[in-house]
């Protein structure tokens, strides 16, 4: 009996001792781990840059680990409890503030200020700031624009829309049979909010005060498009990938979508004659800033992480890398017009990017975002008037701000 227990106990110890951490050194180099959710087509480029960095110096060895996008935030939260976190973490920019406030990331303000190559665009840089301190580096940015079917516009003698009246008219004329004039994503998550905000800002509204007359005007405009049948009612459950399929299949003549969709439209609708233009405006052009940041996890290999990031997000590498993956560098000293001068599609996005504003940053952005997309749902389903829906959302947002 005793022998058996002894045997079992030693088995348990053997198991525990084997499941320890991997060695932190590879070929005499310190290991720096990164969590990311890059998928095709970005991931190939990203990994090749890591290989390049690894071969350039002999102090650090960077190791990338894929974590699915939906899983990543959960992993950070659980990692914070279990102490199992990478050295560098990737994060979508509206989520950054929550985790910065939670104290998960290293405050890199001093290192940042001492870095020679620290020129960043204001919007992306704001997204890594919390309480005036810097907790990460933006790695690539993107924004939304209007994709349109060139042939459909020409057949109907329509100009490319530049303002809301033209957009509404084009959507009306192009709505025929199975085809809707315009689609955007209003799905009940961050994608929906991302696509709602440009309209509010374009009408002259403010993200912090969405129930202003301008906000109401924007939501009324969108609601009318749906009510009149120029936009599909199904956009309430369509994510950005879903509306891209509608556009590719010819079931939508125009769609609001991001620059990261360009390679995919080219691939999936090779015979389509399409182009992009800035989102038609009411009072001013507007878009919302998308993109991811890289953060250094507190107490991990900060020196190694900083060394890699300052190489990867240096102006020289950032320009090369972002062009390769169809996104934009967050560095302010890179001339986007020059980089994309030969690409008419990306040039439009580059132009639109000037009008892109960041979401938040706010540690409770997910809740604020939820209130906003709920307001769009209440209005598009005609449950509430745009004014009622936005008043209700604003009340929630005020409550969130007050509690904070």
């Amino acid at each position, binding site marked *: *009996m005793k022998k*058996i227990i002894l045997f*079992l106990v030693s088995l348990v110890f053997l198991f525990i001792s084997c499941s320890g951490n991997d060695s932190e050194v590879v070929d005499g180099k310190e290991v720096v781990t990164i969590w990311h959710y890059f998928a095709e087509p970005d991931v190939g480029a990203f990994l090749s840059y890591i290989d390049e960095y690894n071969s350039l110096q002999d102090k650090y060895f960077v190791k990338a680990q894929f974590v699915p996008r939906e899983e990543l*935030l*959960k992993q950070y*939260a659980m990692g*914070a*409890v279990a102490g199992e976190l990478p050295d560098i973490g990737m994060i979508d920019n509206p989520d950054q503030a*929550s*985790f910065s*406030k*939670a*104290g*998960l990331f290293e405050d890199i303000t001093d290192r940042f200020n001492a870095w020679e190559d620290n020129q960043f665009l204001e919007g992306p840089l704001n997204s890594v700031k919390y309480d005036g301190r810097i907790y990460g580096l933006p790695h690539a940015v993107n924004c939304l624009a209007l994709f349109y079917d060139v042939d459909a516009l020409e057949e109907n003698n329509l100009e490319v829309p530049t303002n809301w009246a033209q957009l509404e008219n084009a959507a009306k004329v192009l709505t025929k049979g*199975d085809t809707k004039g315009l689609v955007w994503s209003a*799905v*009940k*998550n961050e994608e929906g909010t991302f696509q709602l905000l440009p309209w509010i800002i374009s009408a002259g509204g403010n993200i912090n005060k969405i129930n202003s007359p301008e906000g109401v005007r924007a939501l009324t405009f969108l609601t009318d498009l749906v009510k009149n049948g120029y936009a*599909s*009612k*199904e*956009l*309430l*459950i369509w994510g950005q990938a879903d509306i891209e399929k509608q556009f590719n299949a010819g*079931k939508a003549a125009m769609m609001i979508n991001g620059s990261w969709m360009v390679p995919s439209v080219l691939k999936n609708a090779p015979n389509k004659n399409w182009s992009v233009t800035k989102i038609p405006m009411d009072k001013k052009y507007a878009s919302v800033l998308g993109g991811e940041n890289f953060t250094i996890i507190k107490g991990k290999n900060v020196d190694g992480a900083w060394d890699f990031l300052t190489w990867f997000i240096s102006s020289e590498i950032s320009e090369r890398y972002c062009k390769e993956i169809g996104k934009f560098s967050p560095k302010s000293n890179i001339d986007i017009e020059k980089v994309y001068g030969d690409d008419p599609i990306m040039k439009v996005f580059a132009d639109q990017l000037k009008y892109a504003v960041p979401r938040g940053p706010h*540690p*409770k952005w*997910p*809740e604020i975002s*939820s209130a906003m997309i*709920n307001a769009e*749902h*209440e209005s*598009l*389903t005609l*449950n509430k008037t745009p004014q009622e829906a936005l008043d209700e959302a604003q009340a929630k947002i005020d409550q969130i701000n007050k509690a904070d």
Partner: protein
Amino acid sequence: MKMIKKINSYEILFVIPALGYMLIFVGYPIIYNIVLSFQDTTLMNIGSASKEFVGLENYKNIFSSPLIFITLKNTLFYTVMCLIIQFSLGFLMALFFNLKFRISGFLRGIIIISWMMPTIATALVFKFMLSETGIVNNYLMILGLIKEPILWISNQDTAMWGLIIANSWVGIPFNMLLLSTGLSNVPDSIIESAKIDGAVAWQRLIFIVVPMIKPAILSVLVLGFVYTFKVFDLVFTMTAGGPVNSTEVLSTYSYLLSFKYYYFSQGASVANILAIFLIIVSFIYVRLTSKEEVGE
């Protein structure tokens, strides 16, 4: 008289692995979740060692928001409707395939495939099929049953029905399989003697078959309730809880609180409310089946 045999010390060893597994992987998370629901754990303090105990504060917070009542109502409606549809159709199909015609086994095998599909795949396929221009609307229009396409899952009034249809498609074969196993255990001789005694088909069904397969019916209903009540992936993929909140259920609400808003304790509280329902149903099941065994 003492019924339980004295257990030899070495026999305990065979139980230890299973017991250990249950304690670590089932017992611990349940207890942890209960403890979590009485603490104030958010993203902001998750890393620190001590969390404040706040008593029933989380439950108070949850019940002060109308969303919990909407999700409770949605979850119950979804569960009951799914159970009714999948049980009745599953039972009819089980009776049908019990007729033992030539290709019944083959057909039964094919139908069971839908139950084996990953839920995510089912959800995506149904999202397409139930869309405005999808195949379901297309056929309904061709048959002249509807004039305008029905917005199955993008209209708040019908979205829940879209989910119920998708889930029933998965649930029917499962019900059929369990019920037909029960049916095959009903001895032909009893049915034959009932026939001789003059019982017509429906009488044989209600008074002989149903009582005889009662254990199978009970387990189908209980398992069905448990599977349906804790639905997550189907809802998450097809509607993400929308339009408005018409398809938000307890599990997606718990996820929203825990992993979108990072109120881990409130999320745990909602999960516990969900668990309470499942425990009650399981308890009733255990009571009913133990009575059954005593009666035998």
